């Protein structure tokens, strides 16, 4: 007999009280060797910023490994609460290649969970690094309508400086995944 999974509930408007103390958006020190800056905004269906949201990321290290197979202090995990303009930013390293269970190689990407007041459960998405050749071969992107793929691919504003917005709803709604 299996126990009933505990249902998800919203983080509510006061999430900062509980979730800021262990928030760490810098997986590596800004400015350190190979550091990659990823920033963006969390937006609602009307295009308004979501100031009471949180993004959590989890990703492979540059060799494509996850804990416990990584070297300390790499956790692969980052958390950033959105600011008054809905902005978030992370400093990390470019993730290495990771295969699907089928053996197909995926383009380098970061797993993302989005939480906010008004969201009763997190939305699951992923951010791909720019790189046309690898993106063209990615088995997950291949399943998405061409017009919506761009919502998952970060834009390089400058070297080592990526931008990606998350649209919860609306014309530019980000692609979200279910199980």
């Amino acid at each position: 007999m299996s126990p009933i999974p505990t249902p998800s509930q919203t983080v509510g408007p006061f999430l900062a009280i509980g979730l800021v103390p262990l928030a760490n958006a810098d997986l590596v020190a800004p400015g350190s060797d190979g550091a990659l800056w990823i920033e963006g905004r969390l937006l609602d269906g009307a295009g308004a910023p979501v100031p009471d949201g949180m993004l959590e990321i989890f990703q492979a290290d540059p060799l494509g490994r996850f804990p416990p197979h990584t070297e300390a202090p790499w956790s692969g995990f980052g958390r950033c609460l959105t600011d008054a303009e809905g902005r978030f930013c992370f400093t990390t390293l470019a993730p290495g290649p990771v295969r699907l269970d089928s053996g197909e190689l995926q383009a380098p990407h970061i797993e993302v969970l989005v939480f906010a007041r008004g969201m009763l459960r997190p939305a699951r998405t992923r951010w791909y690094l720019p790189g046309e050749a690898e993106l063209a071969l990615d088995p997950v992107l291949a399943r998405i309508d061409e017009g919506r793929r761009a919502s998952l691919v970060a834009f390089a504003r400058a070297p080592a400086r990526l931008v990606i917005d998350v649209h919860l709803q609306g014309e530019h709604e980000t692609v979200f995944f279910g199980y």
Partner: protein
Amino acid sequence: MDHDEAGRPGGAGARGATDRADLAPGAARHLLGDKTALGEVDPRTIDPPYDAPGYRSSTRRSPRHPLLVLPPSVAERAGPLLGEGRVGPLDHDLTRQHPGEPIGERIVVEGRLSDGDGRPIAGQLIELWQANAAGRYAHHVDDHRAPLDPNFSGTGRCVTGPDGRYRFVTIRPGEYPWGNHHNAWRPAHLHFSVFGRAFVDRLVTQMYFPGDPLFAYDPIFNSVNDPIARQAMVAAFDLRLTEPAFALGYRFDIVVGGPRPTPLEDER
């Protein structure tokens, strides 16, 4: 009122609530015996839909495209190791974080973190946050006309033990009004943030108190459609956890079930 559900507390979900809200504390669990059976609950009714009836804030923050089904990858079957080293010795005791004692009724909240097969999850981080006894959060956005308590921040953390157990000592939070609809009040609750073994286990939820008269009117509680799943968010009073002449004890077991199927309502 800018939403057609406003003023109709709970919306569709509340109808389902009425057949359980009047049961004795922990009754749903009791009816199923000590080991509740997932067989009684459709897994697609465990989690709430993104766009929930009566919860106004979900209207513009709910994805409208169908979710793309993607089984958990190697990434999501792994997980960050966030246990040891991040939690101080008094982080689990919200009544001892300031020079004085907070106002309110002390409570002990204890439980077990397990996976969907009932196996304990050891060494993982649990974060907690809540309103004070007067129903006010120590947060600049909270404008409820109730007093702040200089001896209460409402934030706690702990790491599960080898048997998956965790324990907090805190103050019973007050109910509080919110702007969702006319005369809207949230039932008393604690916010829990939980990491399991894998990123796919990540869970944020709310723990409620048994017998709360506000259950029938709360669209967040009732966003979980299945009445038995809803009871899984309600702690049980437990005399064994109650400390004589000190604090009432509540048991709240947390089950992170691994990948959750997409709720029925989101299959558009």
